[in-house]
């Protein structure tokens, strides 16, 4: 039996006057998973996240977190939900420790152990003034405040912006450990490699509309493979006239195509010809992503 979603979005719409922020969005995030939320600038990622947390008033639709209504039960939801905004500021003249302790107290939590542990892990100096921190260190403060109350559900909006590659790796490791502990994480990102590395599933949004929600493996499978064959002689295009073979392009002796199924039959057919070279590539998430954005979603 499928678990009840931690985050359940139905028909969520946010309009800014005539401008569509998001339109009729449906999405489920299940317990213990890391869901990646992909889309270019202005696609509606941040709008979706902020509407879920009640920072924006939704125009239509329902958002439930832990089965609770995001508007009516927002305080109860926020007791159990950590949040890292995409852009944030804090108190420049105060020490990081003072700020984090205050934010922890606002969550109704007195145990500082996770705050200290995560700060140490991310090499964040708690005794420095927030205003004196670099962008990367400020981002660490944001990450620590999102996780320090040890809540069950964490929403992250572009969490690794400003972090150096080594720190990003540490953060990914931390996310995986949190997942192991049963935490549910919903994170938006531009960095496809990080989504590929840490996320179980991915949702792609474009112009306020959800394009696809899929686990990453299935998505790649569904998108097929790119097959490039260089023949010794000319190419007979009819040999690729098969179900599961798309976008066949012939350039002299080179044939390029997308194979989503019937790969075995394709190989058998081309092997009847003299082959000079051949490559079979799995689509990277980058390519998938670009495909969705160029075409407006085909999957």
């Amino acid at each position, binding site marked *: 039996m499928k678990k009840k979603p931690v985050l359940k979005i139905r028909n969520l719409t946010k309009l800014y006057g005539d401008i569509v922020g998001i339109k009729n969005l449906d999405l489920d995030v299940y317990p213990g998973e890391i869901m990646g939320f992909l889309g270019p600038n202005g696609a509606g990622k941040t709008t979706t996240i*902020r509407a879920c947390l009640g*920072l924006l008033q939704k125009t239509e639709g329902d958002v439930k977190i832990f089965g609770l209504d995001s508007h009516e039960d927002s*305080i109860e939801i*926020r007791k159990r939900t950590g949040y890292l*905004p995409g852009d944030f500021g*804090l108190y420049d003249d105060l020490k990081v420790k003072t700020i984090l302790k205050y934010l922890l*107290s*606002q969550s109704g939590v007195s145990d500082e152990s996770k705050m200290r542990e995560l700060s140490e892990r991310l090499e964040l100096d708690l005794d420095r003034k927030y205003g004196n921190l670099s962008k990367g260190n400020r981002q660490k403060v944001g990450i620590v405040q999102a996780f320090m109350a040890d809540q069950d559900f964490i929403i992250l909006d572009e969490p690794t912006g400003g972090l150096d590659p080594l720190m990003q790796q540490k953060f990914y490791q931390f996310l995986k450990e949190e997942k192991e502990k049963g935490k549910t994480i919903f994170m938006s990102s531009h960095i496809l490699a990080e989504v590929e590395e840490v996320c179980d599933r991915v949702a792609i949004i474009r112009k306020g509309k959800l394009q696809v929600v899929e686990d990453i493996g299935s998505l790649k499978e569904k998108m097929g493979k790119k097959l490039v064959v260089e023949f010794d002689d000319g190419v007979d295009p009819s040999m690729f006239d098969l179900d599961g073979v798309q976008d066949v392009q012939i350039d002299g002796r080179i044939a390029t195509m997308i194979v989503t199924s019937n790969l075995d039959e394709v190989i058998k057919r081309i092997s009847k010809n003299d082959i000079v070279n051949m490559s079979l590539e799995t689509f990277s998430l980058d390519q998938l992503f670009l495909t969705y954005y160029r075409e407006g979603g085909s999957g």
Partner: protein
Amino acid sequence: MKIVKTMMMELKNSWRGYGLFILVVILLIGGFTQAFPAFSEAFEDELDGSENIEVDVVEDGGGVIVRLSWVEIDDAENYTLLVGASPQMIVPIDRVDGIQEMHYEYYTPYDEDGSMPETYFAVVAVSGEERENEFVGMETNIDRRSPLEELWGMDYGDIQGFISVLWDMWWFLLIGLYVGYISVNSVSKDFEEDRMDILLSKPISRKQYLLEKFSLVAGYTLFLMIIAGLVLIGSVYSVGELGNVTSSALVLSAVLSWPVFLVIIAFSILAAVYLEDSKKAMGLSFIFILVEFGIHLVGDISDSLKHVRPYTIISYWDHEAALYGEAISLVDVGFLIVIAVVIFVVTLKLFERKDIPT
């Protein structure tokens, strides 16, 4: 407890400004009161030689008889009485020569409106063959009031009146503008410095958020009032006037201004929530404060404009009653608190429906 922690957090973030302003208030109030002796002397604006003349006014049908008597001047052969409508007496309206005694009764008819005309009398002694003149003195038939007294309708020659000048002229503007400034900033800075998302993602309601902001500024302002009252006690004591006014009256006169500032705090937070931008919100808040002060000034300057007084919140702060030990109007205090609450509720409704900007 969250509200206390938020207040402590705001204080930690802004303690320099808050502390500096407390220092300014202490210096201003302490320094202002030290000017009382000189100010008080200036109010004793006696007419020249008035100590040499006595005036007794007796009503007589359609006017008054002004009975004048004056000290004898050696070698004076007679006296001349000059009568004028002002102390300058550049053009006397009447003149009586050859008065042999040191007294004279002068009849003055009432004005058309039935009031006694303000009349000034100067006595000059005349002596010797060359008719030398010696000024004896000057007096008037009315109780003289200084120009400021005329303006404000109060006796500012005593310590209570003097402190009323402080409250009327300085306190509202000084505290009002600063309170408006910190109230606006307490909310606008959270918008402008992108703190609002994180703060409101914690399990506190928007109502609590606004209450925390309001309570912080209101608490700080009350603290300022109490400090002002205490400094006033010390300062009034140092000029030897504490026997003429009670310590509790001094503190109460300051603390009674608190509800006025609650309205300003509520309005400024409303401006900040509505406009989000601190400069615009501060502009609106300052306009509100200056308009209130302007109405207060206009209403006090002329009796013909006193009907505008109810339209300024300052009118509901009766510091004079507090200073003179008279009954305080709880209705006035309650009225101000109700206005502050109504503005706060409107702000809350607006804030609860608001998209938090990024």
